[in-house]
């Protein structure tokens, strides 16, 4: 009697995590979607669930690198992910992405040709662009002299006059990208010496830097805490809403054009459903909602046409083609350069 009671308790204890683990299975198909934090319009996953009956487990990550580490550990299985360009090419090369069946993604036709077959996915087999944009140099026009800005150069981030009021990207790829461009090299340089030179530039910049940050750039710039910072064009409009003195330019040396695109993992067992999700995200209704809520540029042509002209006419969000031609898309670095970048970055940060 007592033994039976005890063994009942015991088995409940042992089974508890097992039940919890399988509890999320259910009968309907479940898609695991992994996206950047705050990078989807509100209610979109609910709407998808309602329309298709496919359940969505939606989780979020803070950087391409942590996305990569979660997936490469092999312990967490995702279906749809939305990495950026260079991470896509790295994952393609490492055989992590599935070739998409575009027959299941009819809305792909509405994606502008400009955003297809870019260097990270040259044959256009693995990815469907979600948003795109470019990095800009943001400055506070009330406090930064017009003369210093006139040049429209990356050098503004190295201007000693503004020591302690400059912010810098807290991720190596973007930070090195700027330093490489400043020196006139490619952001995708495979030359070790060029990377070391860029690291020297970043070390030289460190004393001038107030902080290495990502999201905080937004607040620090709009509150006047910092005067100069690089960031993604899509967030500038919201900053200007808080602080009309905020201005920005695409540097003349060239800037990074980034594309965040939807991909399906090779390990996914629900590829058709995953493609259905991607197709849903590309529909005009959702793409429009996404562009409106996130502020980033949309590659979906119909959605762009429906957007308020006050947004589509902003030259740093939808730059003219000749400016775009001067931008560079990140793609995968060879392993040894990747390691070099990581080592150099740690070195810059730790001293």
């Amino acid at each position, binding site marked *: 009697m*007592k033994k039976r009671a*005890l063994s009942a308790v*015991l088995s409940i*204890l*042992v089974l508890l995590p097992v039940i919890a683990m399988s509890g999320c299975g259910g009968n309907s198909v479940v898609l695991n979607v992994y996206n950047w934090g705050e990078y989807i319009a509100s209610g979109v996953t609910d709407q998808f669930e309602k329309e298709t009956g496919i359940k969505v487990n939606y989780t979020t990550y803070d*950087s391409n*690198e*942590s996305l*990569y*580490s*979660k997936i*490469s550990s092999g312990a967490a299985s995702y279906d749809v992910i939305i990495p950026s360009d260079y991470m896509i090419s790295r994952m393609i090369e490492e055989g992590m992405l599935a070739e998409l069946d575009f027959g299941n993604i009819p809305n792909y036709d509405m994606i502008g040709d400009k955003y297809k077959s870019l260097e990270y996915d040259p044959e256009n087999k693995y990815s469907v662009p979600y948003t795109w944009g470019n990095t800009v140099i943001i400055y506070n026009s009330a406090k930064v002299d017009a003369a210093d800005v006139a040049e429209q150069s990356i050098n503004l981030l190295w201007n000693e006059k503004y020591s*302690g009021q400059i912010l810098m990207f*807290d*991720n*190596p*790829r973007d930070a090195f990208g700027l330093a490489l461009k400043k020196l006139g090299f490619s952001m995708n340089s495979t030359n070790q010496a060029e990377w070391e030179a860029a690291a020297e530039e970043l070390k030289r910049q*460190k004393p001038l*830097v*107030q*902080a*290495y*940050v990502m999201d*905080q750039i937004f*607040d*620090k710039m709009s*509150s*006047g*805490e*910092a005067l100069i910072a690089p960031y993604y064009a899509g967030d500038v409009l919201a900053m200007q809403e808080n602080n009309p003195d905020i201005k920005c330019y695409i540097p003349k040396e060239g800037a990074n054009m980034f594309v965040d695109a939807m991909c399906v993992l090779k390990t996914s067992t629900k590829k058709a459903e995953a493609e259905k999700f991607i197709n849903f995200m590309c529909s005009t209704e959702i793409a429009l909602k996404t562009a409106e809520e996130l502020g980033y540029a949309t590659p979906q042509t119909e959605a762009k046409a429906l957007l308020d002209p006050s947004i589509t006419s902003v030259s740093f969000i939808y730059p003219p083609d000749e400016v775009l031609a001067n931008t560079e898309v990140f793609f995968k670095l060879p392993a040894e350069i*990747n*390691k070099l*970048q*990581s*080592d150099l*970055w*740690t070195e810059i*940060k*730790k*001293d």
Partner: protein
Amino acid sequence: MNKNGFGKKLVTAPYTLWMVIFVVVPIALVIYYAFTDADGGFTFENMTYIFEYGKTFLVSIELALISTAICLVMAYPVAYGISRFEARRQQTMIMLVMLPMWMNFLIRTYAWMTILEGNGLINRALRYFGSDGFGMINTEGAVVLGMVYNFLPYMILPIYTVLTKIDVSTIEAAKDLGAGRRNVFRRVLLPMSVPGIISGITMVFVPAVSTFVISKLLGGGKTFLIGDIIENYFLGNTGMINYNIGASLSLVLMVLILISMTVMNHFDKDAGEGEGVLVG
């Protein structure tokens, strides 16, 4: 005869199983990873990274020690004050100490950013009174403040617990015997509260030395602590994932803490069973 002896063994079974699988085995795996390379071969190479990050280790320890000291000085009077209240008041006060912990510590740290920033509340108040204000955020000082703030309750609670166990009459007896306020504290209160102080110190020092979020948010990514490096090797923001190096650094951190614990426990003669004093 000893039928309940069998029952008692049985009740610990789920616990034993759980702790072996989810505590002992993982630690063993950390050790295994620390001494192997990517292909599983034995190596000492991962350990050499300790020297590469020697300075980071030192900075982490230094900041953690400073915050622990500040916590101790701040917490003792509060814990003492609370322990002298009547029982019901005490309960309310202790709840008030614990309540901020129900806000996740990430959120509380974000709130500190609002207070400390160049255009934050403190500087704006200073400017209102004509001062220029000064840079507080993105400094080591801000990181220390974040640590003190987040871990202060861990210092107050154990000290409070031991202080409530001290009989008021002991203090009164000392006073009657002519001990001054200072002597009462030095000769009676302090020695009797050593166990609480010690567990307070460990409960503050350990999370402080290993944090990676506080340094990122309040240190502006300029103060790089050992926790940041371990995080990078596992969920790498720098894109270099290496469980082996990460495990070896974790192992070093673990040993470091074990050593300091042993040293600390040396001061505490009463720590008979190796139990920490927690909230009673």
